[in-house]
């Protein structure tokens, strides 16, 4: 009898895990700003973070601008109106009133949470050569490997800490790629951002390890507005990875982050994202609205910015990691896998703005839609008049599973320079019954077969991910599509 019941509960556990592995919430007391969006709340955030006046002014300027901006509505996925006055804009575990000085001072419950997420900070620190900055709700919790990075002069910390310790860098670059006035969600972020990561790599330094941030939304009714700023100084290199999870909640939670990258002469930034926010249940209830602005500026000559994203979560994903290729000979790349299942919606792609001469961009987008979901690739390639001899190559492939989902490709191409060259290829395919049958005849069950075929479809993009995460991403691709074959 006992075995039976424990087996039952085990099965239930597995069932739960299958649905959304990260759907737990941690019971930690939170300090919250009062609900709603107003000057008081912005002052509260700025005050609790002991920010300098210039930053408060900057935030308030954004807030003034926000009042006249309208939410964009050109995107394909529509969503019910968000009541911005009904959200919390700041939520921090109470134990953080005084920021912990080291990992040992962290609330053990938080450490437990990170363990569940598969990022045991303590062990990670020792075993893997990956420095992690973890953001829990609104606050950056811990950064590992600080000493080793400091030796090389690399700054990797929360943006709050950078504001205190490196104000000159923050002041110089914050908002330099995504201006205050950019668009509704970016401006909202500028007004209320709470934390995020900051990276500065000094001239000529090659960052010796992957830098990684994990974001997690925990408290309910909380928006998460992180701000990430990465600066690669002349001749430097950095690879950065961002991972995201959230607990399962019935209501939709808003995530509106801004990420700015700046690459100076001969510098290279590689930015990878594995986004696995809670996608909502199979009927489309709940889930994260992921409205994110990510933009990189290839400011210097011969600079390079490469975005790689694996988007599997969120109820609605709406993001276009972009590159402004300002420096001559600069290179922008965008590699994307976006998977939607059940009722998920994604409108994602990139913008490649060619300003400098001999600039090159490459876009590889792989969209997979299953269930009742809907996927749009939307991409802009703009070659300006002065961008002589520039090149773009775009490849958009869509894979459909079943006949209730949608896939759309919306390329915008403007070329004002006759000496430049653009190529665009797009394909749409379906996983055929025959392919599935073939794999099953070789002993794979239907889900393994789909996983294999889809991973094959995504291969060009998966190859771009750092090794450790490629494996994780491959598994995630399989999990995201579970139950999508009949």
């Amino acid at each position, binding site marked *: 009898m006992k075995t039976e019941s424990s087996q039952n509960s085990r099965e239930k556990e597995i069932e739960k895990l299958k649905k959304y592995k990260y759907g737990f919430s941690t019971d930690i007391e939170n300090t919250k700003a009062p609900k709603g969006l107003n000057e008081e709340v912005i002052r509260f955030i700025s005050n609790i973070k002991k920010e300098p006046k210039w930053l408060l002014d900057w935030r308030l300027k954004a807030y003034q601008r926000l009042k006249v901006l309208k939410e964009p509505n050109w995107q394909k996925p529509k969503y019910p109106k968000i009541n911005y006055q009904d959200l919390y804009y700041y939520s921090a575990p109470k134990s953080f009133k005084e920021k912990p000085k080291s990992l040992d001072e962290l609330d053990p419950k938080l450490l437990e949470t990170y363990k569940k997420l598969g990022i045991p900070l303590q062990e990670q620190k020792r075993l893997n050569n990956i420095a992690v900055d973890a953001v829990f709700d609104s606050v950056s919790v811990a950064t590992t490997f600080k000493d080793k990075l400091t030796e090389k002069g690399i700054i990797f910390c929360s943006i709050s800490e950078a504001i205190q310790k490196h104000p000159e860098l923050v002041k110089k670059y914050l908002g330099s790629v995504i201006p205050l006035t950019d668009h509704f969600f970016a401006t909202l972020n500028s007004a209320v951002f709470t934390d995020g990561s900051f990276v500065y790599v000094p001239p000529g330094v090659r960052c010796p390890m992957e830098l990684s941030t994990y974001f997690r939304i925990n408290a309910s009714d909380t928006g998460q507005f992180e701000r990430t700023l990465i600066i690669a100084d002349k001749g430097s290199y950095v690879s950065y990875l961002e991972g995201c999870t959230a607990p399962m909640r019935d209501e939709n939670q808003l995530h509106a982050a801004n990420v700015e990258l700046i690459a100076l002469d001969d510098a290279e930034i590689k930015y990878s994202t594995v986004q696995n926010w809670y996608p909502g249940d199979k009927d489309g209830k709940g889930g994260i609205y992921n409205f994110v602005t990510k933009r990189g500026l290839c400011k210097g000559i011969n600079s390079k910015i490469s975005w790689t994203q694996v988007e599997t979560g969120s109820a609605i994903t709406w993001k276009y990691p972009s590159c402004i290729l300002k420096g001559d000979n600069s290179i922008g790349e965008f590699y994307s896998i976006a998977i939607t299942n059940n009722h998920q919606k994604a409108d994602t792609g990139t913008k490649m703005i060619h300003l400098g001469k001999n600039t090159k961009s490459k876009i590889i987008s792989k969209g997979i839609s299953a269930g009742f979901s809907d996927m749009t690739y939307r991409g802009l390639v703009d070659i300006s008049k002065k961008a002589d001899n520039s090149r773009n190559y775009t490849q958009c492939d869509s894979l459909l599973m079943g006949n209730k989902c949608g896939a759309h490709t919306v390329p915008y191409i403007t070329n004002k320079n006759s000496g430049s060259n653009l190529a665009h290829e797009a394909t749409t395919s379906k996983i*055929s019954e025959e392919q599935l*049958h*073939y794999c099953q*005849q*070789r*002993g794979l*069950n239907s889900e393994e077969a789909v996983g294999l*075929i889809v991973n*094959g479809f*995504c291969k060009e993009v998966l190859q771009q991910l750092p090794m450790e995460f490629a494996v994780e991403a491959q598994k995630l691709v399989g999990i995201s599509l579970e139950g999508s074959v009949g």
Partner: protein
Amino acid sequence: MLKINNLKAKVGEKSILNDFSLDIKPGEVHAIMGPNGSGKSTLSNILSGKKGYDVSGEIKFEGIDLFSLETEERAHKGIFLAFQYPLEIPGVNTNIFLKTSLNAIRKARGEKELDALEFLKLVKQKSKELKFDEEKLNRQLNVGFSGGEKKKNEILQMSILNPKLSILDETDSGLDIDALKTVAQGVNALRKKNNSFLIITHYQRLLDYIKPDHVHVLMNGKITKSGGPELALELEKKGYEGLN
């Protein structure tokens, strides 16, 4: 090993197999010959578990009702189908596909999965035996393979998976003489005491290299004549029409 009794198969209203019966014992090689549209491919599809057929009758594999098994479970139990048109799977490395397949089957049988080194050793040996260009195993599965290469790849998979019952669905069609010999060599190497084969073919040619124990003529959905290897030669001479 495989016992088929009064198998009927329909697609929609169209009857394809009718009172089809066959008994394959361990270690036997059976050849089924028949003209176009006689139901040969339907037979291999049904045995492998392909959906879309309305079936009745009975098929037992080692005493188990085959209809109660999913496609992959049949593979786990040792049924292998060399496809008439092997599928292309873009982006999937042939070696990885083979390893995934072998380990899925081993796992289902409770055997230890092979690690990368053990697998490569096995693959190297089998490719050498079948003169299969190893370099091709690093390419995407069947993508850009010639017709002959695809068929040889099926035989390579067969020899690696070492199935109890192998069904070859017109594996010989479109092959040049060298490739044909390779296919035959693969079959003959596996033809041990307990491995059985069902070879579906149009022509007698392949049977010059693989000597069957039994030859059956399939016409209009049922076996109209059975005999030994000499039946294949007779067919070659007289054609299907002249056989009654």
